[in-house]
């Protein structure tokens, strides 16, 4: 019995301290790095989650939308917990709790019972269904199942039930976001396109972005322009809802009628070309008006481009208040450049964030040294490399696509940097490398309120710049000799 593995019984042993120390030193070496980069199968500390998580985020972004996981309830618990921890907000979502029988009989019964219960209990205006692994593998036919649910009266005929296939063994959270968003827009806009009608509004697609401050910032910018808009999907009020003593399961989100009418929009602008690729590809062919997909407005230059694009698409001039804000941001950059100039950064994150962060770093004279995406494409790799090549500060930078945070650890231990930019998961590498971690990413499990601080736009430039520079000064103040401890910095 004891030898089920065919191994001998051995004494309980302690690893000698010298051996521990030897290995502890070894994992910081170039030799180890090579071994580490030779990995073919094992993934260690990836910086991406699976599709349904992103799907849930998109699903939350619509008014009265109840995210519905077709799959195990354990999956749903994981997604919800992640969102709870990041936003420190409720994330109401249900699952249809598939179990072993599902493998045999398929998930239709679960789906039907789930729809019936959740519709009655949580009174959603829309149920947004997405899948976890199990139904993807057994091949559940959601189209048929949902049709049957309506026929059997589990849900009203007119209740929108968009659904997305979001297999976890494909892509990452940004792709699940894209798939769910697409499904929702396809569902809601079906039959809503009216020849000649124009809402006069701009549809803005922020893409997968778990920073509610960013979404509010887009809205503030559009309001400054005087551009009427619909954000698709608007998670800002959902995941930054006031505490006034009342719990509201649906505290915000894009209004369904606005989403439906978005097909008749004047302009549709997708920000971040990676996390809304599919959705944009579809709506470009199906939405009225003008369309554009541009990078997320991180840094001065990309914010300039965003404002110019808004102006170009809407014919509205760039408002004076934003020009002034640009001046404030630039003022900070020139005043504080000496605290960041030449500092080396390891940066990792989702593709659209990465492109923005690298752009910002280059324009303030910092050196993005290790640029890593744990789920990316050749196209992304090229785009990042071209960005690095565009600046003398990118000369030493290298791009690593489909490498994980254990690779990153090897990089920062063998080619040191001054700081890491990423999400909470980077804290272990940052601790080992004894450098600060700037949490400009998702998820953030260990600091408060950061999701409310915008990173995009000129305001975002100011936030990132002061956060980074002040932390670097903190480090100087906290680590310098007494005789170097000074009043001014």
């Amino acid at each position, binding site marked *: 019995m004891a030898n089920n593995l065919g191994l001998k019984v051995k004494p309980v042993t302690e690893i000698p301290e010298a051996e521990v120390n030897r290995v502890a030193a070894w994992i910081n070496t170039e030799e180890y790095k090579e071994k580490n980069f030779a990995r073919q199968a094992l993934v260690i500390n990836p910086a991406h989650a699976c599709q349904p998580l992103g799907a849930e985020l998109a699903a939350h972004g619509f008014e009265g939308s109840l995210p519905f996981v077709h799959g195990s309830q354990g999956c749903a618990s994981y997604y919800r917990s992640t969102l709870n921890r990041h936003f420190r907000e409720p994330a109401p979502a249900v699952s249809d709790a598939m179990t072993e029988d599902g493998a045999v009989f398929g998930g239709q019964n679960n789906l039907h019972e789930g729809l019936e219960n959740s519709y009655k209990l949580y009174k959603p205006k829309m149920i947004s269904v997405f899948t976890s692994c199990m139904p993807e593998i057994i091949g559940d036919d959601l189209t048929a199942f949902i049709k049957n649910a309506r026929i059997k009266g589990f849900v009203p005929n007119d209740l929108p039930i968009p659904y997305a296939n979001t297999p976890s063994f494909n892509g990452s959270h940004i792709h699940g976001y894209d798939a769910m968003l697409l499904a929702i827009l396809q569902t809601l806009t079906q039959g809503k396109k009216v020849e000649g009608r124009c809402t006069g509004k701009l549809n803005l697609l922020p893409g997968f972005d778990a920073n509610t401050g960013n979404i509010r910032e887009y809205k503030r910018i559009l309001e400054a322009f005087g551009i009427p808009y619909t954000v698709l999907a608007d998670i800002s009020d959902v995941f930054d809802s006031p505490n006034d003593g009342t*719990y509201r399961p649906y505290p915000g989100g894009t209004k369904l009628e606005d989403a439906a009418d978005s097909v008749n929009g004047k302009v549709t602008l997708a920000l971040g070309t990676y996390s809304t690729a599919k959705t944009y590809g579809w709506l470009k062919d199906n939405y009225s008006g003008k369309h554009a997909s541009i990078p997320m407005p991180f840094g001065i230059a990309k914010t300039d481009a965003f404002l110019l694009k808004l102006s170009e698409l809407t014919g509205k001039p760039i408002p004076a208040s934003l020009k002034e804000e640009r001046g404030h941001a630039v003022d900070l950059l020139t005043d504080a450049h000496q605290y960041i100039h030449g500092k080396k950064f390891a940066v990792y994150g989702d593709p659209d964030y990465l492109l923005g962060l690298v752009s910002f770093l280059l324009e303030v004279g910092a050196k993005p040294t290790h640029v890593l995406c744990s789920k990316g494409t050749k196209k992304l790799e090229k785009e990042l490399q071209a960005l690095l090549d565009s600046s003398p500060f990118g000369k030493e930078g290298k791009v690593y696509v489909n490498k994980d945070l254990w690779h990153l650890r090897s990089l920062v231990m063998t080619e040191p940097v001054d700081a890491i930019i990423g999400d909470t998961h980077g804290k272990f590498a940052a601790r080992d490398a004894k450098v600060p971690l700037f949490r400009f990413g998702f998820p953030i499990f260990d600091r408060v309120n950061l999701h409310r601080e915008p990173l995009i736009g000129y305001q975002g430039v100011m936030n990132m710049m002061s956060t980074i520079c002040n932390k670097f000064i903190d480090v100087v103040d906290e680590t310098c000799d007494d005789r170097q401890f000074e009043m001014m910095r």
Partner: protein
Amino acid sequence: MSTEIKTVEGITKESTQAMINEVLELYPEKGKKKRAAHLAPNDQASGSACVKSNKKTVPGVMSARGCAYAGAKGVVWGPIRDMVHVSHGPVGCGWYSWGTRRNLMSGITGVNSFPMQFTSDFQEKDVVYGGDKKLATLLQEAKDLFPLAKGISVLSECPVGLIGDDINQVAKVASKELDIPVIPCNCEGFRGVSQSLGHHISNDTIRDYIIETREFPEPVGPYDIALIGEYNIGGDAWSTKPLLEECGFNVKAVWTGDGEMDRIAATHQVKLNVIHCYRSMNYMCKVMEEKYGIPWIELNFFGPTKIRESLRKLAELFDDSIKEKVEAVIAKYDPQMQAIIEEYKPRLDGKKVMLYVGGLRPRHTINAYEDLGMTCVGSGYEFAHTDDYDRTASEMPDATVVYDDASEIEMEHFAHILKPDLIGSGIKEKYLFQKMAIPFRQMHSWDYSGPYHGYKGFPIFARDIDMAVNSPTWKLVEAPF
């Protein structure tokens, strides 16, 4: 155990049942019927379960439950510090469970301690062609990169079982080739109804692959015990293990908080198993009792009353030397705990708490609140079984509500009616109740605090409960306009 019947002013079986009936009215007929069996007023005197449990979650409700994988990875295997635990399948499961249970670990990360997220990151092609080959490769890579790892666990995610991979065979071959234990654990998330089956499967796997594969080099002593079902949340084991040692015991192994594979594998040599989390590990206690004749005892390390009771119950099984030490320990700590009670009780006396946690704390912590003058007005479990509810009956005040696998809407409704001063539950519930201006503590994770176990833990528990209940921020929720 107290035999006195505890009551709560204003709460009767009728009032509780009425409250339950109200919430059941929210369900469609079928759902209502299913849920009805899981909600009931406590019958303290009965000493037995008043609700059904360990049943499938009702589809479409907001359940707090996890899955078998969560029970295996998060609870049983994950805390063993010197093994590499591979989440075998798509990237998500391992990512979600990475660092999100606070089973603290000693050692140097990546050297002799592995709190990282190891995954085979299944892609479409792995689902189509099978992942066994990838698994074999990654096991070799793990061995190469982490030469001091004592073993590797392979924790299957849903697709693995569904596509028919044979991880047991891969593990067997790899074990021999790499000369370290590679433990296959078929804990796919679709198995069973909750985390609970994951515990059971993991226990069985330990039984099948781990136990009896190691032996302590030193001779077995009369006070050699193992601490079972102690996961070192927020450092709990670093409170309870020294406490048992202070009482004269040699704690040869901890299952599995800050755990070491070798010691777990040699646990068949101990004289007694002391179990804290009965739900997740009673299987193994029973196995060891049957197979090796090791008796076991269930203890409660929350709050001075239960700690005192528990230590004396434990001492009863040993000689006078232990009894004396235990009395000395109680005499040493009781005044300290009394001082804590005197500090906090005036601010907490008469406050009401509602609990909804996993498989242990909904009953084990009740008395700790009572030590602080508080009353439990509702309790329930995510994944308990009838034996857990049996044990709960006597701890809870009579007629208070018991809920099994509660859905959020039920909890919300009960909170509206019962108006507790504190809710102790999980991250998914936390912000909902805080929006209702109800003080809340996460009682899975000690809300990033801890330890809460033992004498080291109670002062921290008391401070945290006071902080939650008496934070002046709650008074700010209502605007003067």
